[in-house]
């Protein structure tokens, strides 16, 4: 069971199969999976809350947290770690340095009085930016199989829009019903879009049939040659009009970068992957729920908390607010375990670490990016990267007081200045739409649905995206820029752990981080 850590009481036992530092989503999943598989797991967190970089924090905790993980401008809170080499054992204790994930934090309070009327604890802001779960995606599957679903409540994302070239929000025709109801597509465009969907569905069904070893599915499948080609080329070969291509690429497949200019594009989506993304959508619709996407009530941080508790139920030893150092063998330099601030040494074969910490590292920049969606999804295809936004209503998801909304924006960028500019533009555009009485009216934090929405408060920051790995410690991934958790789960190597979740305690290896 989870215990409030008391320095004075040593943790027993002192040897574990696995030590996990950090209660971010990946760390929690690994801890829970390993515990379920019958491994002895120690789950530590230096914070007093669950979630690490995946937490949902109240307004007043938000800035201190970001700041403590921010680079230069705020050098006030430096991590104080001391290297202790105690002579009476054979280990070197390496202090963990905090990785400075955030930078360029910029907080503006537009309406202090309005905000002051509410307890800042009533807000839950997701550190990880705009994220949702798809009903048929891996994260939902994982939650389902780990048995934590009954402890969570979700709110369906009711509307999904794309910001079109004439500056209006347009409901994304992403299903048969949505195409039927759409008022902007011409009849032939509807026909073409639906035919494309059917082609994909047929391909997916044929792929499923094949697993059931029913032959003759080849003709309904998309050819391998097509699957390996860029998705945008495939769409062109299908003779889809530009408008429909944009919808598929940016609003359904959620591509990060403008795909029209393949030479200049930073990340080209292959048809295989594009279809994969459509498949998640399609399967989410098949569940018969009115919405394909869901948002966890009380914010995404709640997911980490619930999963950590699951780990505890399965016998994982959990402790929070624990400063730690990593123990290395003095001679061989091999990882041995961790040393708590109390001086207690705890040993394990493996260590999994939150990306907050590093020992030595080479930053590798990876290409995730921006997102947006819930009540609103926006996108500016004329830029290089798409901007995604999610609007969550306070009354429904309990992330802010009633009558208010939280809107998240994100964009992938190489340059902080440019990224901020894009986000400012997006914010202004949405706010303007809302003010001009657009039907998608309920945009920013508004006091009351009938009142024009006003911006009360905003915060902008840049999160570094990097992954690293080192010999003996596996670093869990940090929040990426995708709308869903699929890549994250893949790179947590949960491929393995997810199987362990089925709760029969079968003997499976402890999870390993992939590169």
């Amino acid at each position, binding site marked *: 069971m989870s215990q409030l850590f008391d320095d004075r009481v040593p943790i027993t036992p002192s040897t574990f199969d696995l030590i996990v530092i950090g209660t971010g989503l990946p760390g929690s999943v690994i801890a829970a999976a390993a515990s379920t598989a019958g491994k002895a797991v120690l789950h530590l967190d230096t914070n007093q809350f669950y979630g690490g970089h995946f937490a949902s924090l109240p307004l007043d905790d938000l800035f201190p947290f970001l700041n403590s993980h921010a680079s230069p401008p705020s050098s006030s809170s430096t991590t104080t770690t001391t290297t202790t080499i105690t002579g009476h054992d054979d280990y070197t204790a390496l202090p963990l340095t905090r990785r400075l994930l955030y930078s360029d934090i910029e907080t503006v309070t537009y309406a202090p009085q309005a905000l002051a009327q509410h307890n800042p604890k009533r807000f839950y802001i997701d550190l990880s930016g705009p994220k949702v779960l798809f009903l048929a995606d891996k994260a939902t599957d994982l939650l389902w199989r780990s048995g934590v679903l009954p402890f969570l409540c979700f709110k369906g994302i009711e509307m999904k829009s794309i910001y079109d070239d004439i500056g209006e929000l347009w409901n994304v025709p992403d299903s*048969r*019903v949505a*195409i*039927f*109801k*759409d008022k902007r597509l011409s*009849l*032939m465009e*509807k*026909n*073409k879009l*639906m*035919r494309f969907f059917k082609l994909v569905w047929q391909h997916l069904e044929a792929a499923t049939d094949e697993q059931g070893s029913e032959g003759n599915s080849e003709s309904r499948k998309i050819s391998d040659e097509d699957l390996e080609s860029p998705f945008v080329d495939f769409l062109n070969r299908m003779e889809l009009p530009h408008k429909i291509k944009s919808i598929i690429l940016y609003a359904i497949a959620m591509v990060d970068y403008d795909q029209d200019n393949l030479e200049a594009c930073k990340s080209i989506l292959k048809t295989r992957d594009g279809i994969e993304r459509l498949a998640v959508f399609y399967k989410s619709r098949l569940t018969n729920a009115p919405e394909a996407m869901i948002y966890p009530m009380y914010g995404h941080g709640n997911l980490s908390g619930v999963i950590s508790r699951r780990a505890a139920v399965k016998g994982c030893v959990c402790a929070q607010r624990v400063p730690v150092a990593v123990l290395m063998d003095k001679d061989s330099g091999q990882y041995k375990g961790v040393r708590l601030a109390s001086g207690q040494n705890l040993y394990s074969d493996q260590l999994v670490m939150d990306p907050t910490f590093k020992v030595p590292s080479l930053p590798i920049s990876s290409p995730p990016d921006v997102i947006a969606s819930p009540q609103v999804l926006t996108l500016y295809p004329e830029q290089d990267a798409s901007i995604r936004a999610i609007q969550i209503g306070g009354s429904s998801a309990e992330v802010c007081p009633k009558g208010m909304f939280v809107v998240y924006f994100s964009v992938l960028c190489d340059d902080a200045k440019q990224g901020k500019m894009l986000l400012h533009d997006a914010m202004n555009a949405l706010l303007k739409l809302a003010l001009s009485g657009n039907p998608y009216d309920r945009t920013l934090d508004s006091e009351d649905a009938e009142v024009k929405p006003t911006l009360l408060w905003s915060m902008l920051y840049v999160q570094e995206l990097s992954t690293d790995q080192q010999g003996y410690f596996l670093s869990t991934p940090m929040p990426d820029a995708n709308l869903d958790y699929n890549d994250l789960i893949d790179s947590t190597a949960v491929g393995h752990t997810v199987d362990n979740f089925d709760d029969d305690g079968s003997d499976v290896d402890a999870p390993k981080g992939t590169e």
Partner: protein
Amino acid sequence: MHGRPRKPAKPEDESASAARAEALRALQSQFFSNHHNKVYTDEALQLSGRLIEQNPEFYTAWNYRKLVVQQNLDRCSESDPDALKSIIDQELRLVEIALRQNFKSYGAWHHRKWVLSKGHSVLDREMKLLKQFQLLDPRNFHAWNYRRFVAALLNRSDEEELEYTREMVENNFSNYSAWHNRSVLLSNLMKKKAEGFFPKAKVLNNEYEHVHDAIFTDPDDQSGWFYYTWLLDQTVKTDAPLLVSSWPAHGSSVILSRNRHSSDCSSSPFDSFRSDSGTVPLLIYFNQAVEGVNSSSITIESSFCTKDLIWKPVLQNNSQLSQVWVTHIKFPNAKSHSSEVYQLKVSVGPTQGIISASGFDYSHPTQFAFKVCVRPIETEPAEKQGEDIILWTDENFHAFQTQYQELHEVVPVDQQSVNDVHEPTASNWRAETIAKEIALFRELVSEINCKIGKLTLARLLTAHDVILSPCTSKMFHSDEVLQLYIDLIKLDPSHSQYYKDEHSLVFLQKVTSNRESLLRHCFSHKNLASSSIGNHICLRLNNLSLSRMGSVEKLLWVRMLDLSHNELHSIEGLEAMQLLSRLNLSNNKLGSFTALGPLKQLKLLQVLDISYNEIGAHSIDTTRYQCSTPLSHTEEASWNSEEIGTGGAGVKGYWEAFLIFKSMSLTQLVTLGNAISGENFKSFVVMFVPTLEWLDGDKLH
């Protein structure tokens, strides 16, 4: 509820179901004993309830409960509303339990209606119940039926219900029931001309837009098309019946002779008519079936008395609704040695009375006029003598064009000035709407290979032609339509028969749409000049792959018709060709004598060739199930059982043939080459068709 595969039963399921059956049987026998002994106690009622809970389909139990409930209700005094209510509530609860078992149980839904019809219950609950059921399965047509019933009881407006269908369609447009209810409601609203539902053009145009979204989004889904077909019908059909054609046609001159061998070649070959009794048939043809055709709804001005004419529907069944009506006008005897010319002016619908099947009056009074020239009898009617056999071989026919000069007079096509003006303004929106639809579907069909899209386009094009010229059916699009049907035959072989039929109908429309094309099919027969039918022209529609007969309204004048070497499996419609006396149906696909039913209406038919068909080849006569005139129900009781009795085995074996030939006076018949052919059959025919002179090419007597 839909598209779920059935799983094979596991052994344990089977034993469970056997046990259940055992229990059910025990319950059932108790129930029957109660029912037979009229035991209506509470206990017995409960037993029937338990039975129903297990098997809601057991309608005897429902009926039993009705008896009991009715008796209990009768006993209950009006002054005790609580008792009444509890009786009713108990039934409603039981129905709900039954429907939870099987929400498609006819008995349960019916019982609920019956209970509600007794009054005493709260209807609001019904709407809630319906909501649950339609959430479970939005297409459940039982629930939809019931909804209509409750909506009527609640006096819910059609507008409200229409809005509800819109919501249901928006949730999922694959919902026949919702679309269907929409068509029912809209029909009502348009008929009432309710506010916002007039004019029809506006309403229909909105509906077209609505259904386009469904059809174009998913052309493979049939429910949208189903609604579209209804819309198209609403657009094309005219409410009021119209007169389409007549014989004699407007402006024509008919020569009536009584001479058997009149060889008056100067008369128009199309309009001479021979009748020993001096009567001329008058045929009128409407665009839809009507009733109320009689001597007051149709008046004739002439110099002699034409009052009290008997109008008869030309139909195979006993209905009083028919598209074609006929009467016979008896002309006074001509004075000797000089012809007498009579002018006749026919007014159709001067007074109310002619009404269409859907209750619309004939609202466009029309007139047409023709002349009848009665020839004097030049010789005494000769003693009846035999005729030569009519041979249908090609060498006996000559192209018709070369022989006559006054061609422009003769073929009575598009002469019908009678109906020039029907609702000229109204038809404008119809034509515009259809033209818009044609453009849309041409685009769809050019993009994708869509069977129903092609069929719809063909129907639209045909409808467009009809709307632009309702009487003459000028075929601007016939070639495109014919090509579409040819494509469809290849594309969709399982429905090829339907496409072939449609192709035949359009092809015949095309042939009859103008004088030139029709004349190409007119021939004169070698030994017709001396024949007795008074008309020298044979219309040859042979070797054209026809599978259906159509455009008969343009062919009322035909006396001799060659339909051989086609693929006819039905000759429905041919009954309107009342002047027909010679008919060649050889080498077709007629499968039974029943298929020849229309011939019974052709009182003048003398020469018939049905050789080389498939009569007798099919042991089950499907015609009777397909056509609207099941023989067994409509056969006049004009024959007596004695005849059949004395006919012995012959009649028993060939009673279908007997029923056909009985009412005809054929003089020449060819039946060779059918499965039924043979000596037995031949001797049967000889016995029961006494007028016959030639059979299978042999002279009788």
